[in-house]
């Protein structure tokens, strides 16, 4: 049974990014760049959100894929995911809303 503990800061930042435009389908790499997470952190979050039915996924249509590359996976929040995202406390500023990069941490 899933536990109802608050999401981690990284998960919260992903949820906030997704709920900013809840109807849009997002790519994993683009989402990771936006919230400052690498694949090793982002994908476990996406997998867990999907397993808890907070995230839905679909494959890109052939018409959307270009240049002969394989279709990508697209993600957006489910109703339950949007509900959870709406309960997150709003962030005070951009710096606290997004995980800081390595260079920013060094200068902190």
């Amino acid at each position, binding site marked *: 049974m899933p536990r109802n503990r608050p999401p981690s800061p990284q998960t919260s930042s992903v949820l906030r990014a997704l709920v900013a435009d809840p109807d849009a389908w997002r790519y*994993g*790499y683009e989402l990771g760049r936006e919230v400052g997470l*690498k694949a*090793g952190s982002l*994908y476990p979050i996406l*997998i867990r959100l999907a397993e808890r039915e907070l995230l839905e996924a679909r494959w890109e249509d052939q018409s959307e894929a270009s240049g002969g590359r*394989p279709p*990508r*996976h697209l993600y957006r929040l489910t109703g339950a995911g949007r509900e959870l995202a709406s309960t997150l406390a709003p962030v005070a500023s951009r710096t606290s809303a997004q995980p800081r990069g390595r260079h920013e941490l060094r200068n902190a």
Partner: protein
Amino acid sequence: MRGPGLVDRYLAVVERLLPAARRDWGRAMRAELATLDGAAERWRFALGCTRAAMLPGPTGRAAGRSLALVGAGALVLGGEIVLAGVIGEFTPLLLALALLAWLGRRPSYFGPVRPDRAARIARSCGYCLAAACLVALVVAEGLPGLFRPGSLRSGTLFALVLTMVVAAFLAMTARTTRLGGTAMISGIGAGLVAGAAGFVVLPFERIGTPLAHGLPWQGTGLAALPFAAPAVAALVTGWRARRSDQAVMAALCAAALGALLIALAGLSAIVFLPERVPDIVGPVMIPGATAAQRQLENSIEASDPYFGLLVFGALLAALLWAMARPPARAGATIALVLLLGVPPIVLAGTARDFPGTTGIATAAVAVLIGAMVTARPARPA
């Protein structure tokens, strides 16, 4: 169109590692990789995906928990801790550690962990250290006499030390800590160096042949490391963070971790390799004793300095805890004084069993901790 490169093949292998239910995620990662340019970026992405592929699934997590339960059961039975008296000794310690681990995940004085790599690594080190101590303790229970079973003092000492160490690690890696990332990393790095060097130079205290005997100049260079490493940690932190309190905390972190590691390595060596313990008591001191009795007495004698170091390391950790704590109001300060003051006093009393210098050092550090906790003004972070 060019064929798949090495990184594509690598990610294809990673995809095969995923359980069938998550194979789509592997395909998703490969599709994302196809859109990326630049070898470095592509490798970074693929290596990140490797970490994601190792995420245990719901079945894996359930299997892991079952395995842990079975392992714990086997450890309990194999470690002969089914005896009622020993359970009485272990239960408060395990309950205290479980409570601390629970508090460490909730918004509290001990948690949650600060969201940066340094804090996560430091907290993991603390848990590993505690787990290693528990394993050594369980194994030692099968060696009658070494920790003087039945002696409340011995069990209480170990429980207090372990609780203090875990509490210190949790507090110094919590979001409210004043310990900076540079101080934490340099302190832990220097502590690992100091611990390893100290153990190599000083195995089995004063009589045994040091492990460094075969090294150039009999490892005399290594003898400086346990003292030099904390100093280097302080210098590096002071230089990078430009704050003296961070430098002091880095040195304390290194010294505490170094002392704890030397003690843990020494006690583990005595527990696991009792035949390597030198003949400290000699045939004259216990006339007519069997070889097994002599070995046991030797183990007890050899363990004393390591117990002293264990106490010393725990007190340094408590001092670090006191320095790294967030500002608190008067009521919270009084609670902290009680929380931090009682264990050192008990430990100082216990330290009478150890060589005199350790007892004096222990008492001195206990006084220092009390003074620091009470004298520190509350001020905004």
